[in-house]
């Protein structure tokens, strides 16, 4: 079983790297945005009273870039690939071999997970070296919430892949879901500045909760239990829905 999976993962990795758009939006863009915005926008490197005295480049901007990378992977890259595989009969062809098409699903999720970790590491390392973005103070907790948040987002992406009938729909739906979720996650308006009603809505979204616990652990605070519960809830609901509704053809 293991060597087979290895070759499948290797092949799927090559295919991922051959999609320049995916690599750009998931890996290059978040890191580049952090560096360019962090270096060029006046005030991003100064203590900001509206963020409780933090600098924008401390947790808000890098946290949002990590969120951007994982949300793009989970809601755009992963479901588009899986729906295209179903639409083109790649999964059906695989089901005629001794390998179950589940192996392809596992390979895709594994690659997405590795890319999420690498992209996060690249963004934070470059941010640290170029702009002096602090290393997450609660590194273990940061890693933990990264995993939980990624699981929640990937589950939603898989759910999307399960219900979308074709690639056009999955790409359209991915975009329609992604932008409000990024907004509620605090991408354009930091959660600190949201009107309280909006922030309550944000608290219950996967991106709002994810963005907050990323920033919490980067700043050295313990992640808030309610936010962790929201993430776990989304992971559970979307994961079960995806598993029940996923079709191979």
């Amino acid at each position, binding site marked *: 079983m293991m060597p087979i999976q290895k070759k499948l993962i290797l092949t799927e990795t090559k295919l991922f790297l051959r999609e320049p758009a995916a690599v750009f939006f998931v890996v290059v863009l978040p890191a580049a945005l952090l560096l360019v915005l962090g270096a060029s926008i006046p005030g991003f490197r100064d203590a900001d009273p509206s963020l409780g005295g933090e600098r924008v480049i401390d947790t808000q901007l890098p946290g949002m870039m990590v969120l951007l990378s994982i949300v793009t992977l989970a809601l755009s890259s992963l479901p588009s690939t899986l729906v295209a595989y179903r639409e083109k009969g790649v999964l059906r062809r695989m089901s005629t*071999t001794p390998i179950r098409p589940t192996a392809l699903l596992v390979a895709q999720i594994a690659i997405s997970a590795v890319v999420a970790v690498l992209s996060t590491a690249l963004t934070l390392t470059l941010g640290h070296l170029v702009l002096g973005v602090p290393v997450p103070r609660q590194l273990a907790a940061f890693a933990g919430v990264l995993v939980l948040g990624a699981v929640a987002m990937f589950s939603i992406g898989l759910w999307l892949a399960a219900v979308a009938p074709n690639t056009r729909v999955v790409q359209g739906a991915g975009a329609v879901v992604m932008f409000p979720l990024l907004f509620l996650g605090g991408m354009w308006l930091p959660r600190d500045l949201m009107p309280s009603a909006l922030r309550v809505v944000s608290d219950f979204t996967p991106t709002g909760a994810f963005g907050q616990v990323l920033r919490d652990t980067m700043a050295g605070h313990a992640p808030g239990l309610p936010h962790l519960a929201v993430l776990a809830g989304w992971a559970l609901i979307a994961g079960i829905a995806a598993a029940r509704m996923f079709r191979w053809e």
Partner: protein
Amino acid sequence: MAIISVHNLRKTYGEKVAVDDVSFAVEEGEIFGIVGRNGAGKTTTVECVAGLRTPSSGVVEFGAGLTDVKEQIGVQLQDCSLPDKLRVGEALDLYASFYSRPADWRSLLGEVGLDPGTAFSALSGGQRQRLSIALALVGNPRVAILDELTTGLDPQARRDIWKLISRIREMGVTVLLVTHFMEEVERLCDRVAVISSGRVLAMDSPEGLIARAGGRQRIVFRSTAPVDALRALPEVTSVSRDGDEVVVTGTGDLVAAVVGALPSGQLAGLRTERTTFDDAFLALTGHAAE
């Protein structure tokens, strides 16, 4: 013993009956055709054989040492493509890794005449089908199931695929071929089952089915002389005339008999027409194939 025996296979989807009652047996080493119009139940039948669908009732049995369907049956289905950027060599290498005793994919590559570095999206229709055949063979199967391989291909590409299928049989692989091309059946199949509305209408060699459909020859020529005398010939079954054109049907050495019976110089523009599998199919099902 047959390598595949299908007994009273039935597959329904709710109210819809895809396969009503199908039985046939495939002998080891032959090319067995399943022929019928679109929607006749051919694909569902072979999907049940390949273990991709569970029959509603009926049994599929395997013999001759065929014990593991997924390992030992190679399948090429309709509308199954590959990721656009996957290269031919990578696809074969990957699919070879799925099987416990794969064939050497590099020699298969030579057999199907493809360049390992070509991306799937850059392959022509015929090349994609050749790759599909190679993928169906990469596990070193006992049986290859090939579903509508030549649909949509140009005549040259179709002939290339036919050559390849003949090669597969020479390699000792039994072939179960699904098609709605009558010419393909005549050229390739040792035996064929004609399926219509989910039932087997007839099963025989293509020649046998042609013979059943009449097996008659038909000759057409122009003549101004009286031709009534031809009716007396033992080879002749019917004679009809429309102005100068005479149509004679019959069996045996019909041409020699007719030519010998008419005075020389009384016959022009002679052509013979043979019953084809197309005619046989038409006679069996009451419909043209496509």
